[in-house]
């Protein structure tokens, strides 16, 4: 086994012919499986939001925007995320004092237009 010669990987390669491939064909399998704690698109729960904008302050890329469309008493909260800027670091989730933002495993959001990347959470 320790002798020097060429083609040492041949047997392994031949055995691989009869093994299951380590990769999968991407065609037709839909969304790929991700790990349970994978950082996907965050979820926004507007009921508890106090409009403190702490998430906006800590966002490294300025991707998230919290908008209050109502008044101070009658809150009508909206979170807008620019997917083109978001780096999915989840700092906003860590920062949020009321836990309005929560993680999810949704990872499919490719778009064909740049403007479509700005989505409402």
């Amino acid at each position, binding site marked *: 086994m320790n002798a020097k010669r*060429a*083609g*040492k*990987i*041949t047997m392994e*390669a*031949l055995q*691989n*012919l009869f*093994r299951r*491939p*380590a*990769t*999968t*064909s991407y065609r037709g399998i839909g969304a790929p499986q991700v790990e349970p704690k994978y950082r996907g698109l965050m979820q926004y729960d507007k009921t508890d939001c106090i409009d403190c904008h702490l998430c906006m302050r800590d966002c490294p890329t300025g991707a998230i925007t919290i908008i209050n469309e109502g008044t101070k008493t009658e809150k009508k909260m909206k979170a807008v995320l620019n997917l083109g800027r978001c780096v999915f670091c989840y700092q906003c989730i860590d920062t949020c004092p009321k836990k309005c933002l929560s993680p999810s495993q949704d990872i499919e959001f490719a778009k064909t237009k740049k403007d479509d990347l700005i989505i409402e959470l």
Partner: protein
Amino acid sequence: MDILISLLKVLIFPGFLFLSVYGFIAEFLDRKMYARMQNRVGPPWYQPIADFFKMIGKRTLIPADASPWIFRIMPFISLAAVSAAFLYVPVFGNKAVFSFDGDLIIVLYFLTMPPLASFLAGWYSRDVYATIGATRIMTQMFVYEVPLFISLLAPTLLVGSWSISDVTRYYSAHPLYALINIPVMITALIAFQCKLERAPFDSPEAETEVVSGALVEYSGRLLAFFRMSLDCELVLVISLFSAIFLPFTTGIVWVDFLLYLAKTLFTLLLLTLMKVSMARLKIVDVVTFCWKYLTSVALVQVVFNLLIRGVLKQ
């Protein structure tokens, strides 16, 4: 009527059409086996054909500095040479479409055309990568041609004929004699790998060094035909190899055809295994290896075969 049948044989089966279809199949099998040996899924069965038609549909760009005439004609010269050579190799039964004494030499000379065409194509592309790739093709050609010729001629010494069909018939009649040729069978296989510019002898088209070597400026239709000629060259090589070194035929034409397929696919497997299992050799190492080992083994076999022939004649 004879002309019509000859024409059919040349164009359809076992001529050009069969060659190109089998070329695509061989390329697919090669890629698929290569992928599976590396634990990957590999391409779907229609991938080579899809590639071919996709490239046909793309626009062809010719560099301003290149010689347009040579640039355009080279893929077709390469393809024509391979198709012509294929007619002398027995496919259906153990007789080729055409054969005469000495057709092995013709086939070998046709076989030098694809590398030569690549060389000219690369040289006249006037690109740095293509130039380096072309010179490497030339360097490599000079070192593998000698052991390849000697390796292929050694078995014919026992037969006493330089016709591929005769060689096949002779060894079918005496299959055990084929065992004598095992050393040159190995050298021929390695030299063929060298000729096909596949790993570990793929330094002319080493993508990490010279991008894709001589064909770097090719695109569109011309590249499609160049690739097709390389596929056909692969089929020609495995057919020639199995005709000379794997002489098992039954005499029943259809069974022989199936045997031909089995033998060529086995050869393809060997070539793929070689491609899988080694790192690319430097061009200097290729030169040393070919002269030092391949040529000497082949020469010893020639001397040995001459002696055996003397014994057999008595």
